[in-house]
Structures are given as structure tokens and as C-alpha cells.
């Protein structure tokens, strides 16, 4: 969906704090006409509806979201790592965002993400993230077929990092804020789905920066 396109109605599946944060970012996005909460729920910020009928897309967080979306029969923008039936955009997460960052770099050598909600058990080495995240133990993960170093942040901040041949690119922000926008940014590529965010990395990254994330580079 391109910025400026109108008439899009997005339904929020009540699946946690991340999806609520995503809804607030979507409400301010120029390409979205209306955001509603698919109940049962109560909301001070959004209209609550009984079903996803009339919604162009649903937005949801976590493992329960795809099943909920299938029941409503509406395509889901999701922060899971892999395709599932009924999901039009997946990988709309901090890890998927890091992979999208790497996709725009020449010869990416390291993709890493640190977030307070990432469960990390066995760390095999350390990676230095920009402050205030700092140096953390990381474990090896695979996202979108690409090796990704995963770390649990020691504070409330999160960082996505891609190290290429010529530069390092990063986004550092409050973990909840970053996760919410990473999910909301999936709306930018939903019309091209089903696909992961890193397959249309540029419009996805552009949407997330329009929603408030700040990318930075270092030589």
C-alpha cells in the first residue's frame, strides 16, 4: 500500500501490547482510513466491532493471531517468522526488521537483534549493539533463511543491527515502541502479499521510519 492511498480499514486483534502499539501507529499512517478493534474488547481509542467483516487487513501479535485471523477470514499482518495460512505479511517484528535492514546492504556480514522480550538461553559469543543496549551475549537464530544473532536486552531498549561491507546500520528505540512499529509497517507491503517484510524491504523500512523509527549508520 502506497502512502496517500486511502480507504483501507485495519482491524486490531487483541493479542497483546505490541498489537495495540501497532494500532496507534497505523491510525496516524496516511494510507490507513480507519483502525478498529475486533472484539470482544473495550477500547478508549478505537471503535470496537464484533467481527473482521469490512476490514481489509487484520493486525495481530504472537502465535494465537493466525488462528484468530482465519476465523474472521481476513488476511493477517503478523510478527511471526514464517508463512502460515491466512497470513498476508509475516516477519513484521524486530528480527524481521533487522533482516530487512540487511537486505538493503551490500555483502551483509552480521544481522543482529536485541530486545527485552527475546528469550535467549545458550549464548555462544557477544555482539556489541549501539548504546544504551551495549555488548550482549547472543545465540544463533535463523530468520528468513538468514543467520541472525539474537540477544535479550538487559534494559527496556531494543536494537536492530546490520553490518555490511561498507557500513553498519541500526535502529535503537524503546523495545515496545520498536516492536509496535515493526508490526504496523507491514501495512506498506500487504497489497503485495503473501510475503515477508524483507522481500519488499525498502517500502517496509520507509513506512517504519515514517511511523517514527530512526535509522542510523556508522562507517
Amino acid at each position, binding site marked *: 500500500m502506497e502512502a496517500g492511498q486511502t480507504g483501507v480499514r485495519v482491524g486490531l486483534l487483541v493479542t497483546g501490547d505490541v498489537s495495540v502499539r501497532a494500532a496507534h501507529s497505523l491510525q496516524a499512517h496516511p494510507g490507513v482510513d480507519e483502525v478498529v478493534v475486533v472484539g470482544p474488547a473495550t477500547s478508549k481509542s478505537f471503535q470496537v466491532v464484533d467481527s473482521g467483516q469490512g476490514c481489509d487487513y487484520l493486525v495481530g501479535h504472537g502465535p494465537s493471531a493466525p488462528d484468530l485471523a482465519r476465523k474472521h477470514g481476513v488476511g493477517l499482518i503478523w510478527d511471526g517468522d514464517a508463512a502460515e495460512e491466512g497470513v498476508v505479511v509475516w516477519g513484521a517484528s524486530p528480527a524481521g526488521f533487522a533482516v530487512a535492514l540487511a537486505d*538493503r546492504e551490500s555483502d551483509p556480514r552480521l544481522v543482529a537483534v536485541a530486545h527485552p522480550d527475546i528469550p535467549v538461553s545458550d549464548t555462544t559469543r557477544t555482539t*556489541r549493539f*549501539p*548504546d544504551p543496549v551495549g555488548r550482549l551475549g547472543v545465540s544463533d537464530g535463523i530468520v528468513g533463511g538468514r543467520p541472525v544473532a539474537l540477544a535479550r536486552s538487559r534494559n527496556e531498549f531494543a536494537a536492530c543491527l546490520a553490518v555490511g561491507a561498507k557500513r*553498519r*546500520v*541500526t535502529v535503537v528505540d524503546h523495545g515496545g515502541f520498536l516492536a509496535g512499529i515493526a508490526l504496523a509497517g507491514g501495512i506498506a507491503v500487504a497489497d503485495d502479499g503473501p510475503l515477508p517484510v524483507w522481500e519488499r524491504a*525498502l517500502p517496509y*523500512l*520507509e513506512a517504519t*521510519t515514517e511511523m517514527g523509527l*530512526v*535509522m*542510523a*549508520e*556508522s*562507517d
Partner: protein
Amino acid sequence: MDKSPGAVERRGGHRLLLVKRLSPLIVILAAVAAAVALLRSGEKTEEDHPEQWKPVRPA
């Protein structure tokens, strides 16, 4: 105390022997101290001189 000339030479010889025996240990300790200082200076370089980040747009 034996103050004969020969006795002074013997005492001096003992001091020389002690220095000779300790010198490898002194060299090793000095090397270890230098290595620790080098490692700690490396940590300081990373922490005291963080990377310079500048905002950039997706491209």
C-alpha cells in the same frame, strides 16, 4: 660478623645470585602486567570511544 675481605665478597655474591634467580620471574611478571594493561586499554577504547552514528534514510 665476619668482616674479613673474603666475607664481604661472599655476601655480595649472594646478592648477585638472588638477583639472577629472580630475574626470570620479574620478566614474566612484567610481561603479564603489560598484557593485562593492553587488554584493559582495549576495553577502554571501545567503551570510551563509542561509534559515531548519524541518521540516515532507507535507500
